[in-house]
């Protein structure tokens, strides 16, 4: 199953990449791979912007705007004028 085409904010900085492969290991959708000692994007449209690759890149070579792909959280954020938030883990509110 794939979501919308050409939406992800994922981008790689080849200069900074050392080819360690941490981003490949943490990606839950097989988006990335290492080829010739550099990370490459194999399957762009499968990226869900969870941010695991960015968080675990030791050289800051992966850029992505991490976020929740949850309409409820986005609506809730719009209504309360804050960032998208599903309310999970707070005392009140429901959850995604």
């Amino acid at each position, binding site marked *: 199953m794939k979501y919308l*085409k050409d939406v*992800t904010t994922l981008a790689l900085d080849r200069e900074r990449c050392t080819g360690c492969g941490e981003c490949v290991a943490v990606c*839950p959708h097989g988006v990335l791979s290492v080829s010739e000692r550099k990370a490459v994007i194999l399957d762009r449209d499968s990226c869900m912007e*969870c941010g*695991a690759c960015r968080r675990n890149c*030791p050289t800051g070579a992966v850029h992505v705007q991490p976020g929740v*792909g949850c309409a409820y959280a986005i609506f809730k954020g719009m209504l309360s004028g804050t960032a998208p938030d599903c309310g999970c*883990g707070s005392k009140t509110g429901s959850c995604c």
Partner: protein
Amino acid sequence: MAKTVDARLTFQDRLGGWRVRWGIGRYSYLVEPGMYAIGKPSDRDVVLVTANYKLTFDSLRKELNGINAWILVLDTRGINVWCAAGKGTFGTDELVKRLQSAGVDKVVTHRTLIVPQLGAPGVSGFEVFRRTGFRVVFGPVRAGDLPRFLERGVKADQEMRIVTFSFLERLAVIPVELVMSLKYFAVFSAIALVLGVLVGASRFQEALSLSLSVLGAFFTGIVLVPALLPWIPFRSFALKGWTLGLFWAVAAGYLWRAGPWRFCGNLLLLPALSAFLSLNFTGASTFTSQTGVNREIKLFAKPMGVAAALGLLLTLVGAV
């Protein structure tokens, strides 16, 4: 001191898991954060990190039959690993803090932690190493793959790394979505029925059939779309809901022999409702991105609102 837990789930554990799947008390289904022992672990056995949602904790330990391991439970306020990692509560800071407060460096002699892969949005492996000297190894996505992962010498294969969203996995998340949405249906239905009674007995029939039509639209968006997800055309969740909703709108029109106003009202109102509820299911899915959902909202929020309002208006016109 680490508490000892068993790999076997009791009847009560299973009942508790079933309850929270239906949305009952799911924010207070907790285990105490800290160190646990499963089997008879020595100071050389693995440390598995997890969240303090009891459903999460139970689905981990039930896979560890015959395995000696330590389990380090982080305080994620009762939220599962993936959602908590997205919020940062299953994160580097909490892991570092919990390592220290639980005295993990005194319990084991090695310096390796196995963190579920879905914790990676919150846990930075290199930062944990820099701050504590513990090396983070990201384990498989599913706890069920842990025994194989350990046998292979803490190495995941490609399949262990990939998140799925199978038919059964989709069915498992439907009940809580149902329970959360049905209260909105109840309010709508109550208003329709009270209005129907106020206008007259014959109108009550109409209000009842309208309520049932709307209930069908809810069912379409919350149950049918998730269940049939990969087989419905379009990648957009809203469009998937709209598509199935149209079929239901036509069926409901024939089922209750709707007049022309009501029939057109159905065509506008019911698919818009299904579309909205399907769009909400993005939050329970495992592959939608925020930029993507934002785009759907930008494209479809207004058309959904306008169609629903217009549909309701036509239905009312047909009723008077």
